[in-house]
């Protein structure tokens, strides 16, 4: 009985995967042919195969390695800052319900304001360079982490907490052994969103004003009608984000399954 269910599930999963691959391939083929026969002109978009070739060329020649490393480092620093500060603030707000209730409107309207209008102010404060960009990225990512930390701590089942007290765990162990694992699925959601938002903040900053970085290269190529470089870099950036995001969501789903309720 169980065997037949798993084999049914497996066949279904592979069928879904096959259909998804087919859908993506067909979409790309359609785009490719529309570009090739000239329905979409080359000034607007270049065929996906040329984007991939340009991406390959960028990686092989290594001419943008410094920019890629610059952006990667900044993104990593911003994520570290956003997730640690976000976790801390989220934990504090969770433990002070009155403070949490009054800050709720602030947190839920936060993502409607284009945070990077503060970027010029940050440049005045820190100069053009890494620091302003990292803070920009962290400002974008931190609120997603705060909100998801609170959600995660909300979902710690009271029974699990009680088990901790029965075992007479001290506060630190209670946190590390009981509450963090129970909250972990939402914490990973927070990290995943913080990654996405930090990238937005940093790339936006690099678009506006920066000395190097992937955003800077994309903006520069756009200004010079260099579509090949532009789409190659765009593809690299998007593929990178999609891979990190998918890896984190696989992890997230695994934790959800392991630690119970959604």
């Amino acid at each position, binding site marked *: 009985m169980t065997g037949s269910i798993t084999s049914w599930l497996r066949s279904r999963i592979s069928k879904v995967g096959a259909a998804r691959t087919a859908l993506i391939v067909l979409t790309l083929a359609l785009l490719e042919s529309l570009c090739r026969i000239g329905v979409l002109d080359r000034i607007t978009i270049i065929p996906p195969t040329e984007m991939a070739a340009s991406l390959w060329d960028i990686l092989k020649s290594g001419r943008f390695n410094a920019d890629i490393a610059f952006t990667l480092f900044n993104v990593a620093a911003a994520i570290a800052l956003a997730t640690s500060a976000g976790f801390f603030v989220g934990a504090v707000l969770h433990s002070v319900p009155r403070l949490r209730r009054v800050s709720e409107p602030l947190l839920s309207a936060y993502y409607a304001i284009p945070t990077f209008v503060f970027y010029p102010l940050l440049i005045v404060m820190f100069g053009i360079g890494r620091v302003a960009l990292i803070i920009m990225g962290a400002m974008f990512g931190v609120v997603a982490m705060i909100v998801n930390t609170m959600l995660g701590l909300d979902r710690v089942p009271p029974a699990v907490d009680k088990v901790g007290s029965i075992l007479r765990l001290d506060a630190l162990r209670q946190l590390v052994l009981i509450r963090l694992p129970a909250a972990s699925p939402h914490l990973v959601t927070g990290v*995943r969103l913080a990654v996405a938002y930090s990238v937005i903040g940093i790339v936006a900053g690099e678009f506006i004003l920066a000395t190097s970085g992937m955003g800077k290269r994309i903006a520069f190529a756009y200004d010079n009608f260099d579509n090949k470089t532009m789409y190659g870099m765009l593809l690299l950036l998007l593929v990178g984000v999609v891979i990190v995001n998918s890896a984190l969501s696989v992890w997230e789903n695994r934790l959800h399954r392991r630690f119970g309720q959604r």
Partner: protein
Amino acid sequence: MKSTRFDYLVFAGGLLMLWQLTYYAVGAEIVSSPFATIRRALELVLTNAFWVHAEATMSAFGAASLISIAGGIAIGVWLGLRRFAGDVASPILGSLYSIPKITLYPLILLAFGLGISAKIAFGVIHGIFPVAIFTMNAVRNVAPVYHRTAHIMRLSSVTTAMTIMAPAALPEILAGIRIGIALTLLGTLIGELFASTSGIGFALVRAMGIHAVTDILALTLLIFIFAALLNASLHFIERWVRHGG
């Protein structure tokens, strides 16, 4: 209720104080004082030019919101009702939701040119995916017992949709709409920052260009107040539907 109001007052006072302290710490070159910013915001609201920009933003934002909501619900309902199609599309939607869409601005500009259609397109690519994802999950999560009940009562498919599916899925769809609208506003403003000659976002770019700190903060404050009010009223509708509607 009274204590809540008191808490809000204390919180707002605390934020203003923090702002004032930041102003003292970093100086007027970087942050304008809360008093000067609020006064500037009030001055702006009384000028005609502000309302011309606000109207430009609002018309783009309104159109983008309508397209995001209608399109997102249509996609979401379709994928929610078809299990297989939903399974196929769900990770693709998730990826599209999470990619930094600001990087697509060159593509949008090349495709739509400068102007209102680029702004609307920017708003829509930000807002449509959350609405679609929330709607799909809402439709999927309607308890099977409701379907069976409808079947036993021999309701027609239209009646089922109107009296059973819609009320069951509506609260979650509204949550998606709330998030989608906030992101649509963000997208529209980003579109204006990069690609337009009018609107609040354009006014911001101009203020950024001449480093008018008070203007930047006053405009941001006004955007924030608008976003918070919009969000609060959508929250209110959501709660009303969930409990009393």
